[in-house]
């Protein structure tokens, strides 16, 4: 649906069998400034030390770019078709493709007055997370890039869950969060090769696999203040580009963006895992000619590249957004633009809507 009338039509939300509700997140890529505050928030909270140094449950990568781990999009995994009967073979990335957990000379520079440049100590790395930051693609004056924050997609058909011979990974019944049971995990890493987004990580110190937990203690209000919080990556985001809630909360903005307006799309739908993290695709200005004038009708970010990431539906999504932008330019009402401009902060994190169930 791509009109304001869509809300009146019946919709059906497809969530996984045996799951009561499905947590979901929408990230508006047009708002991401690549500051990595989400990455640091996540790392500080969940992945400091203990064999987790190389892991970024949340990372932000520059697109076009090789990503984290390097070339993850070509690492296999996921399903062969939407039947979800046969899995696509996958690989475990080499450690170098994640990058090392390097020590930097921060204290020498900050406290000891060293004139050395800030750099990793005792290693000469050739790759790491964010190595190709802001590199992008295209030629001046039409070079382009955008940022892509990534967490576990807590998929409706998680191939990591299916890959585990011990059923150590499971989809939580109450909210569809995908977790690794640390008691059951024996570190075989079939989940690592099975996840096409490479969002399950092997902890060599614990000899077990670990992943994003959608900050479940926060959304359950189990923190020190006993208040319900959205995920750390969402709450700490300076431009507040994330919506956090439930896909089947039909009164919430996530449902509207995903199911009604269909402007929030999963990354690489062809992996067939049916992610529950959705993206508002980037709408870039048109290309410029050599004189600096806009070339109307020619996108700066090629549509075929966006189709590679988000599938064919990205065209309809961008057209819908464009149509609604025109409406607001003409002074008309647009619920879609209201949601995307986040004019109702109370709607941004809707995590207690099913508390009475």
């Amino acid at each position, binding site marked *: 649906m791509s009109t304001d009338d869509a809300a009146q039509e019946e919709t059906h939300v497809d969530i996984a069998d045996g799951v009561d509700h499905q947590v979901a997140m929408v990230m508006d890529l047009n708002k991401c400034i690549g500051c990595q505050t989400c990455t640091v928030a996540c790392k500080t909270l969940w992945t400091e030390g203990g064999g987790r140094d190389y892991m970024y449950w949340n990372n932000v990568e520059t697109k076009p770019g090789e990503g984290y781990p390097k070339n993850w999009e070509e690492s296999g995994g996921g399903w062969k078709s939407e039947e979800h009967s046969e899995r696509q073979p996958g690989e*475990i990335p*080499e450690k170098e493709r994640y990058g090392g957990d390097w020590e930097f000379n921060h204290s020498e520079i900050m406290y000891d007055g060293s004139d050395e440049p800030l750099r990793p100590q005792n290693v000469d790395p050739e790759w790491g997370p964010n190595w190709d930051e802001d590199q992008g693609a295209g030629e001046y004056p039409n070079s382009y890039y955008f940022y892509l924050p990534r967490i576990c997609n807590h998929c409706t058909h998680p191939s990591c869950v299916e890959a585990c*011979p*011990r059923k150590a990974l499971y989809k939580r019944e109450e909210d569809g969060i995908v977790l690794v049971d640390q008691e059951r995990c024996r570190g*075989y*890493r*079939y989940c690592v090769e099975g996840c096409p987004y490479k969002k399950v*990580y092997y902890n*060599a110190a614990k000899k077990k696999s670990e992943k994003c937990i959608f900050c479940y203690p926060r959304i359950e209000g189990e923190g020190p203040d006993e208040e319900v919080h959205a995920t750390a990556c969402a709450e700490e985001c300076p431009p507040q580009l994330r919506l956090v809630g439930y896909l089947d909360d039909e009164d919430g903005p996530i449902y509207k963006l995903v199911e009604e307006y269909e402007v929030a799309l999963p990354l690489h739908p062809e992996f067939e895992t049916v992610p529950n993290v959705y993206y508002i695709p980037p709408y870039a200005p048109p290309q410029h000619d050599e004189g600096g004038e806009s070339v109307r009708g020619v996108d700066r970010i090629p549509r075929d590249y966006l189709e590679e990431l988000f599938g064919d539906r990205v065209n309809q999504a961008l057209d819908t957004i464009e149509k609604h932008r025109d409406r607001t330019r003409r002074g008309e009402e647009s619920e879609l633009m209201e949601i995307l401009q986040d004019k109702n902060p109370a709607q941004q994190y809707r995590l207690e809507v099913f508390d009475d169930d």
Partner: protein
Amino acid sequence: MMIDGDSGSDRSWLAVTALVVLAVVGAALLPSLSSARPANEVPVGEVGANATDPTAEAWTTVPNVDLALSSAPSGLPGASNVSVQRAQVRAATNDSHAFVRVSWVDDTADRNASDPREFADAVAVQFPENESARPPIAMGGTSNRVNVWYWTGTGRTEELLAGGAGTTTSFNRSAVSTEAVHEDGQWHVAFAREAAMAGNRTDLSGEQDVDVAVAVWNGSYGERAGRKAVSEWQYLAMGPGPQGPPYETILWTVAGLAVLFVAVVTIEGVRRTRGEPA
């Protein structure tokens, strides 16, 4: 040339005596030299306490059983592609402990799992939890579990209980100790455990024969979990029964005496043809 009759007669009797001795000794020795051991038997030798060391001299006195390994049936990626073809198993007891030594060829000693793509070599010895019934070979069954001794190249030894694929559960405290050596492109891993145990642990006190199977993983070949090279069920011949079926000894004795009879008749026949005195 004139042959001395008396000395000729002495020689023939010497030959006959030699043949009798040969037949009797043969009947005793031939079975052990040939494949007289029942199929799937792993003989259990007697050793001293130092059998915890896989290179201990004591192991050389224990019979070696060479087992063919094949890939375990599993839905895991690459499950049919395993690298280890054979394993050699020796079993022994002393007054208090049971020992199993497994040896196999593996050029690389994979002792670490410290990189996302790195897997350690491993070996497991599987017994029925309850010695009186043979469980399904693939990690046992829900009503017929297996007790597994599991060693990995990282140096860790676990004792496990499983009732089917994917149900492996580690004992809180392992009763099994291991020592491992990698030399000349071969792993030798010796497992040791107190022989008499109860509960979820297989009793190896010699009350009866005990089924046993082994599995081997080559870490650098990506082998882990159900992707492994496994043997069929064998049994540790530690029960009080005869060491081998008695008919074998009888058959070998009869065969030896028959050979002896034919030889004597032939010699006598040749002699008479030549006209030698009896």
